[in-house]
């Protein structure tokens, strides 16, 4: 379980003052959830997810993963924490000079796993994401959807219990989006991995999430079960994201 309380991240701005990206965020993500965080561009959702593996150091507040406070992790503890959380990015962020297999094996290489073991694991993961025969290719030889599959395989390499997805389908067409979302759902079901997924598209939430938080102007305006929120959106921004347009306004 991930419990976030009062999480705030403020950046110093050139010429004095601060910019608050997220403020007083309270969130609970249960094990096995596919938790959507939805909001418009600049709402702070990317900052929020980057705080969870401390790519961003929060200014205030607490993040507990399975009861352990992580915001204070430094040095070796921080690296160990990150090795247990997979991450998937909008632009895939694969190493262009490495083969697909070596890309998937990179987290294991970093964790100090020996070559034979990491190759076995990487091959197994490529099978899982449906790219078993592409291991010797390079990222530039694959389509966007295939590259995202590679990056999902990579995120799974270290047997994480949590995967953070930052707009994983925003660079993909709608057909490819569906196949990537299906893959994430399958992984969630088969491996029991908790997934936190950042998106600006309500359809992504609709298709795979069981719980959702709506973030607007740095704060969470509502959260709950996807079915409830979709059926009874309380906030204006949620209605907007749901595509309810009031033409009279």
């Amino acid at each position, binding site marked *: 379980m991930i419990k976030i309380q009062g999480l705030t991240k403020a950046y110093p701005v050139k010429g004095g003052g601060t910019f608050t990206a997220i403020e007083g965020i309270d969130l609970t993500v249960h094990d096995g959830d596919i938790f959507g965080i939805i909001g418009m561009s600049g709402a702070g959702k990317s900052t929020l997810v980057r705080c969870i*593996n401390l*790519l961003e150091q929060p200014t205030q507040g607490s993040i507990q993963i399975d009861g352990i406070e992580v915001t204070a992790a430094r040095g070796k503890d*921080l*690296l*160990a*924490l*990150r*090795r247990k*959380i997979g*991450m998937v*990015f909008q*632009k895939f*962020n*694969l*190493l*262009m*000079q*490495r083969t697909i297999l070596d890309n998937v094996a*990179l*987290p294991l*290489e*970093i*964790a100090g796993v020996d070559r034979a073991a990491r190759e076995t694991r990487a091959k197994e993961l490529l099978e899982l994401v449906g790219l078993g025969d592409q291991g010797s290719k*390079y*990222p*530039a*030889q694959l389509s966007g959807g295939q590259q995202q599959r590679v*990056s999902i395989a990579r995120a799974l390499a*270290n047997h994480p219990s949590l995967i*953070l997805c930052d707009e994983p389908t925003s660079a993909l067409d709608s057909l490819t989006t569906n196949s990537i979302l299906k893959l994430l759902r399958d992984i969630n079901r088969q491996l029991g991995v908790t997934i936190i997924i950042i998106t600006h598209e309500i359809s992504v939430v609709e298709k795979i999430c069981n719980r959702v938080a709506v973030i607007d102007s740095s704060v969470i305006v509502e959260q709950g079960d996807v079915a409830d929120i979709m059926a009874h959106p309380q906030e204006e921004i949620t209605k907007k994201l749901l595509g309810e347009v009031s033409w009279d306004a």
Partner: protein
Amino acid sequence: MLEALSAFFAQYGDLLWQETIDTLIMVTVTTVFAYVLGLPLGVLLNITRPDGIWPHKGFNSVVGWITNLGRSLPFLILMILLLDFTKLLVGTKIGVLGAIPPLIISATPFVARMVETSLAEVDSGVQEAAQSMGATVPQIVFKVLLPEAMPSLMLGGSISMVTILAYTAIAGVIGAGGLGDLAIRYGYNRKVASMMWASVIILVIMVQIIQSVFSLLSRKIDKRIRL
């Protein structure tokens, strides 16, 4: 025409050959040492930037400032400035040996900036991905930054080498040996125009070879190109 050529080579062939070898020695030795020193310096300049993977503002400013200092002095001035230091270091101020210390000192900051620029081209998202995997700073440098930047580092290598070649020609002014020295002593001082042309032609050929070899290597190793 042919007779004139064979007469020219009979008279100057050995000398041209010797000075070509000297130039090659100066360029090679300088390039190797400039990269031994400049590559780590360039890596440090890149990773200690405010948006780098190991931000250290003060360190970055100081090293950056020293690098700029080294680059702001024209090579000829630097060489003269360093004469006594060179003598102390290698026991002579002239010849190939005397030219190498100032060449290295001048080329190192140049190489450092070339390396820094190549590393800056590596997508910051890829570095962030490595960070998210729990990679240490050295792991990111050796597993991500340097391998991802390799094609660009190769092209930078050719630019550095051609620049160093140009420096060796300047070093000829104070008797460093090599083709630049030849062009000045024979071509300019003794007005043997054919010697000037011969030196220039060999220098041009060298530049072409360096450029082609490194460009080919860079293209060959770059996996971003679809096959």
